[in-house]
């Protein structure tokens, strides 16, 4: 089942076409990478899912039904351009955003306290947002995005602005939320995190959907169907690139039969980075 289904969605602003007849499905309980160069139409697509922007044509389905304004309570969105009220206190700010997502004051308070403890920021509650460092504000922003336990989480460049320690904290939280059943849309230019986190992706370029599917399948499809065999024998360590065999591992067996010690045997998959560049440049 898909959490979001986008059917023939187009959006134009005056003359400018931001999205042209895009259809895709975002599977439930997975991490979905939304990729594309700057200005491709990713933000427009995200805003359409969020109902910030209404599509010129096409439909969006949320959990199988046409999406309604009430459904946005089940979505958590962290835009690329982060923003909080600078003059507001951290606690009040978090409470406000949580209540806008339909939480009661009491529930919001309890959940927020939990999150503040988990992130080790309990003593920030009465600080003003403008007193926080950028990284601290990012943590607060992340909490306000997920506190209402959204079914769908849309994160636009979630790791930017975090140091490696905090980026790792966020990465773990994202995986934990996924384990708890949330579906996650991850929009990022960081292809390493796509390989590491995403189960499937969609690539948008110049308002068109270029490709969508499972990450592994796409990497396989765009690879040269090679495997890499590394083995050691009396002469030293060897690395061989061999064609992928559909029904068997003859090369590997032959190697073992020769008495060589196999160090690794793996499918050679192209980096997402290379696929991205290849697709965007239209090669």
């Amino acid at each position: 089942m898909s959490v979001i289904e986008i059917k023939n969605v187009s959006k134009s602003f005056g003359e400018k076409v931001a999205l042209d007849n895009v259809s895709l499905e975002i599977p439930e309980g997975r991490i979905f990478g939304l990729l594309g160069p700057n200005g491709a139409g990713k933000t427009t697509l995200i805003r359409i899912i969020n109902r910030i922007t209404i599509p010129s044509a096409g439909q969006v389905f949320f959990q199988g039904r046409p999406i309604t304004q009430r459904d946005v309570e089940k979505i958590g969105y962290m835009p690329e351009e982060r923003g909080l009220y600078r003059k507001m206190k951290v606690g009040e700010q978090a409470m406000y955003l949580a209540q806008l997502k339909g939480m009661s004051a009491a529930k919001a308070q309890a959940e927020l306290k939990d999150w503040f403890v988990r992130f080790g920021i309990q003593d920030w509650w009465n600080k003003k947002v403008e007193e926080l460092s950028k990284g601290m504000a990012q943590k607060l922003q992340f909490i306000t995005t997920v506190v209402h336990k959204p079914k769908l989480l849309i994160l636009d460049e979630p790791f930017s602005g975090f140091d490696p320690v905090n980026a790792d904290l966020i990465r773990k939280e994202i995986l934990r939320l996924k384990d708890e059943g949330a579906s996650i849309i991850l929009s990022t230019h960081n292809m390493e995190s796509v390989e590491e986190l995403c189960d499937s992706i969609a690539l948008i370029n110049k308002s068109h959907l270029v490709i969508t599917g499972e990450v592994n399948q796409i990497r396989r499809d765009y690879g040269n169907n090679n495997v890499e065999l590394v083995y050691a024998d009396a002469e030293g360590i060897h690395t061989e690139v061999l064609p992928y065999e559909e029904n068997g591992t003859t090369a590997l067996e032959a190697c073992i039969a020769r008495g060589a010690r196999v160090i690794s045997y793996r499918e050679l998959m192209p980096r997402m980075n290379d696929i991205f560049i290849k697709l965007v440049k239209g090669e």
Partner: protein
Amino acid sequence: MNLHTIGVVIKREYSTRVKKKGFLVTTLLVPIIMVVCLAALIFMVTNVKEKTKVIGVVDESGIVMEYLTSSDIIRYEDFSNQNADSLKANMSMFGLDGVLCLGPIDENRSVSANFTSAKPVGMTVTENMSRRIDDAIENYRIRSYNIEGLETIINDIKSNVRLNTYTLDGSGKEKISESGVNSMLSMVLGIIIFLFITMFGSMVMSAVIEEKTSRVVEVLISSVKATELMFGKIIGVALVALTQFLLWIVLSVVLIGGVMSFMGPKLLSTVDAQAIVATMPADASQLDMMTQVLSQSDSELGAVVGTLSGLNIASILIYFVVFFALGYLLYASLFAAIGSAVENEGDSNQLQLPVTVPLMIAYFIALYAFNAPDSSVAVWGSLIPFTSPIVMLARIPFGVPLWQIALSIVLLLLTAAGCAWVSAKIYKVGVLMYGKKTTFKDLWKWLKQK
């Protein structure tokens, strides 16, 4: 329409503002400053009177001195046997504030009167002197006719009719009226509603700009519809305005009550209207109006009080709230649209022009209306929606036909709703636009965008 989220927005907009120190300070200080000024004025006036002016009189005519009776304002001392010039030179030695020299009776059966003082004296003093000198001369002339009983006859003829003015109310009943009171109230109402609409309208604009600049707006409108956010903000700020207004009224009543009971009835009985006017550093038109209100003796104070109590304060307050609410909705939504189109306050100046100009025009018509409440400019100004909230409020103290008020409210309501609708469309697009500076052409494009 999600009432829960609008409620959350309204609550935040309201509570963050009401909890601010600035709000508390303005709310408390404005009535206090007003009352302190008033009290200081009254204190000054009553104290000025207590210091009696001592005036030395050199009366060469021999007929005026007996008419110069001392009062608690002026004490006249007879120095007729002294040399006028040496008296003038030694005023302080004799403890005099001024010297009045009256020449001998001339061929016109009049006298020359010259007053010299070390420091300028108030109008009260000079009028007192000239009135008494006139009395003396008039009586001298009457006597010179040598007709028996003429003095009695003249006194009998003298008339002092006071013109009481009334206006007919709807039911044909007469109300005592004092147009000065109406004028003052008109001006005050016009200014207050103008300030309120401008102040709180631009407060909405700043709030919109703040959300856009801090980029928090995208997070917000992923939870609440843009139009709901805009109206939540407008309503929240309106409640702040009404809270402030209410607190001002309550505080003023409490403070004025306190001052009245402190200064006591003395305040009403001893305040010399002329003296109040004389101490006011006001321009001509204001002075004029103040004089109308204040330059009356006790019987006319009754008319002022009568006019004030004749006005239905409750209905004026209700009209204030209605016209403020509608006028504010109109302007605040336009301000919100402008705020959504810019990224910082500085850029808003040019776009604000079409909104601030009608406000200024309304303000000027209102200031004109307090002199001529039924002039065609004032009547049209109070019907045309962009100026009507301010101009109508300025006209209301004089009494406005009910159909005009009703028409004005209906027109204003429709226009405000239209402006709110247009603004919401612009706002929805505007808050997500960053980068290039917005022009009126852009606003038009956003308006047409679906």
